[in-house]
Structures are given as C-alpha cells and as structure tokens.
C-alpha cells in the first residue's frame, strides 16, 4: 500500500510532466492549477498538520533541555482538578497528572473529553509534567512525535523530493541526449541542457537544506556522510557539464560532446545517488543496508558500535532518545523504502506522496518554461547570425521546428 502510494505519485508526477503538451508547448490551464493546488497542499499539510507525541516520547526528548522548550503531547482530557492540574490520557493509554494544565485548557475553550495538544515539559527534579502552552484542540490529524527529530521530521516533504529530482533531471537529460545523438535536432540539445540546469538548481537546494538539517541532527553542517559526499560529487559532475558546454563554441559539436558526457556520467550519478549511500555506513536512514551486518547474538540485531556524540534518530516510531551515543537501532532501508508498514505513519505517507507529486509538477513547469525560452533564444541567435552573414532568414525555422 505504501509502495503503491509513493511509487504511484512519483510515476504520475513524471507522466504528467510530459503529458499533456510535452516540454516545448505551454501547459494547459488545468495542469497549472493542479501544480499550484498540490504544491499549496504540500506546504499547508507538511507544515500545518500538528505533531503530537505521548508522555514517554516527551520525557525522552526533553532530557537535558530547559523548561523553555516544551514538547507537543496529544492527549484527551480525563479530569480537571481544582488545584489547576489535570489528568490527561495520551495515545498509549498512559494517564498522567499534568500541573498547570487546567487554566491552559480552560483558556483554549476546551474541557473534559476534548482531545488537546499541549506543550508539556518534564521537570526532572520533581519528576512531574508541567503544561506550558496550548497548541491545538481536537485536531483532525496528528503526526507522531519522533524523539530526536521533532518538527524537523517535516523536512522529508521538502528536502527529499529535491534530492530525488536531481536524479530525475539527469535521467531526462540523458533521454534527450540519446535523441540528440541519434537525430541531431536542436530541440533535443535544448531540452537536455535545460533539464540538467534545473537538476543543478535542485542539487544545490538539496545540499543546502540537507546541511541545515544536519547541523541540528548530527551536530555539523557538513559531516561527509555518504549521501553528503555523493551529492557533492554529483554537484561536481553537474558543474563539469556546464563547464564543458561553455568551452565549446560550435553548436553542433557542443550538442554532441555534452550529450555523450551526459550519457557517460549516468552510471556514476546513479551509483553515487542510489548505490554508494547504501553500501557505506552513514548517518542518513537506510545507510549501509546493502551491507550484511554482523548480528549481535543476544539481541539478534546488527552489532553496530554507536557513533559517539551523534543522535542519528531514524524516523521510525521507536527511535532512540536524542542526546548522546544514539545509534540506529537496526539496519533497514529507511522509513520510505522500508517494507515495514509502520516505518512511516499513514498521514506522512500521504503528505510525502503529495510532496513528490507536486515537486515533480513544479519541476516540469519550470523545465517547460526554460525549454521554451531556450528555444526562442536559440532561434534568435540563428536568425541574428543569418542576418549578419547575409543568408536568407528562414533557416532558423528549419532548424528549430515548432513541432
């Protein structure tokens, strides 16, 4: 079900990128509206669906943090006491007395029987839960709180599709490179280079967003994690493509040489984005999953030494506590590709699929506009050159056929 949802959304996004109108004609109005609405839905749901954990996850996450940073806890109000405390029951059926909760619940207009998300901190000295602020009353949907990731778990709706489109862009560029070599059409060269240019933009965005996320989960902006290394190498491969293109003046020669480069580099790009991060142990979820892990005989789990001082916090429900020496509990394919249906919350699966779909449409929309623009530029260049050399004008129409 999960694979069907995410895979279907990904495939549908790419199919709708080419159909209707292809890359050289304007997309119809309905298509543009679909792109805008799905993108808006991704941002609204991705940022807006509240996170609500249970008391256990709140204790684990607030360890070593001050009272100023309460954690969202999703619970139903069981009882309200006159001494301003209240009994709340969380989703794991744990009932807890929370101090200071009664006035906060009353201020929000909620009462007994309502489900609320409150900002709650755990006072380690007195071993009591203290309510800090009201966040939501009776939310339609909630996302589970993942200790160590918290609200940063939402980054998967923005950072991951960017990284995915880096690969899609190179693959599309390769398809047109192949066409360009076989048919020697200007349009194919234009489409290949425009796809690569947009892929480079997403490559930079994926790297920057990944670096910021890494700062708060792994401690440093840059850790030379296998995926970080890989995206860096892919960025260099992208950069070399544009260096190559700008070095060749002759259009036909440039088209052929850069097409060959795109095809040659397809294998390294696929290797660095898909295979290498799974071969080598790393900080990203899913790292090292191709490697056979030696199992610990007592726990029947991979005996991986913990990485000191780093909380890698795989986004599964049972993530280790944030803080020191938290290694991934088990090696799997990560929350997205894992065969375990519980590895990604159903609501997250929907938003994640939506984000892949909408980012694909956005990608193809920008690609469509930049291809049309590049074709105009190319046509202008050719007519300009023809006018200077005194040759008759309509050559351009022969070379750049409006198909």
């Amino acid at each position: 079900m999960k694979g069907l949802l995410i895979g279907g959304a990904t495939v549908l996004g790419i199919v709708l990128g080419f159909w209707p109108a292809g890359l050289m004609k304007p997309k119809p109005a309905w298509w543009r509206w679909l792109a805008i609405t799905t993108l808006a839905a991704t941002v609204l749901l991705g940022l807006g669906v509240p996170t609500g954990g249970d008391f256990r996850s709140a204790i684990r996450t607030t360890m070593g943090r001050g009272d100023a940073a309460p954690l969202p806890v999703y619970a139903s109000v069981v009882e309200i006491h006159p001494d301003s405390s209240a009994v709340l029951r969380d989703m794991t059926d744990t009932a807890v007395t929370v101090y200071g909760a009664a006035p906060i619940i009353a201020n929000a207009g909620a009462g007994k029987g309502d489900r609320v998300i409150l900002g709650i901190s755990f006072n380690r000295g007195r071993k009591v839960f203290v309510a800090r602020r009201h966040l939501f009353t009776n939310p339609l949907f909630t996302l589970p709180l993942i200790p160590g990731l918290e609200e940063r778990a939402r980054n998967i709706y923005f950072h991951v599709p960017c990284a995915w489109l880096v690969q899609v862009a190179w693959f599309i560029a390769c398809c047109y490179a192949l066409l360009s070599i076989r048919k020697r059409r200007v349009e194919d060269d234009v489409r290949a280079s425009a796809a690569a240019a947009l892929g480079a933009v997403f490559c930079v965005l994926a790297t920057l967003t990944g670096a910021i996320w890494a700062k708060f989960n792994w401690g440093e902006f840059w850790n030379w994690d296998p995926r970080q290394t890989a995206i860096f190498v892919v960025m260099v491969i992208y950069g070399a493509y544009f260096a190559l293109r700008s070095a060749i003046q002759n259009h036909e020669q440039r088209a052929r040489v850069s097409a060959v480069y795109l095809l040659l580099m397809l294998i390294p790009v696929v290797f660095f984005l898909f295979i290498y991060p799974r071969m080598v142990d790393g900080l990203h979820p899913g790292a090292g999953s191709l490697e056979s892990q030696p199992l610990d005989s007592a726990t029947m789990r991979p005996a991986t030494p913990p990485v000191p001082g780093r909380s890698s916090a795989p986004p599964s429900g049972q993530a280790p506590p944030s803080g020191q020496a938290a290694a991934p509990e088990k090696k799997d394919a990560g929350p997205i590709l894992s065969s375990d249906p519980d590895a990604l919350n159903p609501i997250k699966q929907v938003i994640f699929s939506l984000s892949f779909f909408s980012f694909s449409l956005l990608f193809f929309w920008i690609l469509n506009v930049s291809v049309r623009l590049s074709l105009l530029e190319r046509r202008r260049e050719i007519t300009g050159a023809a006018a200077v050399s005194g040759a008759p004008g309509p050559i351009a129409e022969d070379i750049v056929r409006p198909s």
Partner: protein
Amino acid sequence: MEFLADNSMYVTLIIASLILVGLLLYLVRIDARLRKLERER
C-alpha cells in the same frame, strides 16, 4: 542556534523557505533572459 535546536519548527521553516527562495532566484534569472529577448525585438 540554541533557540533553533529547541524550537525545531523554525529549522523546518528555514529549510522550506530556502527551497522557495532558491526556485524564486531561478525564476528571476529566467525572467531576465526573457526580458533580454524582448528588448532585442
């Protein structure tokens, strides 16, 4: 930094807006290319 570490929502907001800004910059570049074409006409 400490504020961002404790209030993880803002990290997510920074990341989402960074993507928006990045694509906007690309849009500005495309717009500049188009304007150049229009000026030549």
